[in-house]
């Protein structure tokens, strides 16, 4: 039904599209919670921010894996 060339961009789009869904939710939750914590305790900006960025990187890494897969599908 599909030939390989037509399925390639579709597969790449699905990979990054679905793969960005979870991390997107995760980053939203993370940042929301961090803001909440800052609202309660504004003096803790330093550690909250530092830990938030570290955790954001973990969540973001999952989207990056999907991106790597998409890039591999497209260009290799």
């Amino acid at each position, binding site marked *: 039904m599909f030939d390989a060339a037509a399925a390639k961009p579709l597969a790449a789009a699905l990979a990054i599209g679905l793969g960005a869904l979870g991390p997107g939710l995760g980053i939203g939750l993370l940042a929301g919670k961090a803001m909440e914590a800052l609202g309660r305790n504004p003096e803790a900006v330093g550690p909250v921010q530092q830990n938030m960025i570290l955790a954001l990187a973990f969540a973001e890494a999952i989207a990056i894996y999907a991106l*790597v897969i998409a890039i591999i599908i497209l260009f290799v």
Partner: protein
Amino acid sequence: MGKLLSSPKLLVIAIAAIAVLLVSVAGGALGASFGLGFLGGPIPFISLPAEQVASIGGYPLLNTTIMFWVGGLALLFVAWRAGRKPKDVPSGWQNLMEMIYEFFSNTVDGVAGGTPKAGRRFLLLVSTIFLVVMIINWAGILPGVGSIGKIESIEQWVHHHAEAIEEEVHADHPEYSDEQVEVLALVHLLEEHEFESFIAFDGMIVPLGRGEQARVPLNKIVTFSHHDLEVLEEAAKADALASGEAHDILESIHDDIEAGVVKSSFIYDEGESSEKTYDFTGKTAGLLIPYLRGASTDINTTLAIAIVAMFTVQVWGFKALGFRGYSGKFLVNPITKGPIATFVGLLEAFGEITRTISFTFRLFGNMFAGEILLIAMAFLLPLIGIIPFMGLELFVGVIQAYIFAMLTLVFGVMAVASHGDHDSHAEDH
């Protein structure tokens, strides 16, 4: 607004900024759909593996390797400048390096337990990883990186890509002679990459102003039909290449590959929306192989750093807990501690491998995606589109370096912490 109108200097700057914006919108890929696009380059070629720029006695010198050396030299230079004439009250380079040292010294101690010098053993590797990764990330967005290079001709490209196919064919059919294998590989290559596009160069430079049209597909450089390929394949299999139709076809294909110029038949026509046509006849076709490319956009670099980091984490673990103590984290006796603990131990061992992989892909993915983003923005909005993303890339570069260093530190602290409840009581006094 009133202030803007009353001050001629501000007004001139505002008008110039708007003019640059309009020029870049019109000149880029957006303008190209309205028949403008005088600044747009061809759609860039994105290569996942690093490209080889030279070979030194059989050792392939990659563009990312050169960039890593550049980063290393830059770090050496900074260290030399900082340590040349140390002063009691630091200034300049010394101040910068002391600031970085102090920051990491405090962070390492804080994560490793809070007491002064608690994280001394982690300091060296963690701060080195941070500096190295940051320098190579930032070096990747210097001007000239990825845009200055040599032209890989069609002949080299075919040679380069045919090698792998030749090996495959040879493995499948060891009875074929070298010539047969070569021709079969060529047939496969042409079949597979018929629409692979190349840049039609203007002398030595990538042509600007013709947008995506300057990308010429392979079948406009090398003339062949599907019938030709079938004839060639059959002749190659029957070992009848010496004469006849197949011989002529092969000759003409080889001639085309060697010439590597766009055939007379290729005149790009934009379609009905525009009357502009471009004639690329006789222009050299090929690919741009940049001399320099950001070292962290090569998966080998990031894998190497990740292996160094995770290997050192194991060394720290063995040093702190002893051979029995540290390996006891992964190999648990199922009879005395229960099968679940054994399984958890195995998972932990597996986790060390997945951590290495996630280190690798996190840095590689971020930096490679950043490079593609910059290329795409330069293509869509030349002149200005790239500026905010340059800033973003600077930020991402330092954040990724920080994450790499911090995760190494956290894994190291986890590795040296002894396992189990009774042990942890002994640790926190």
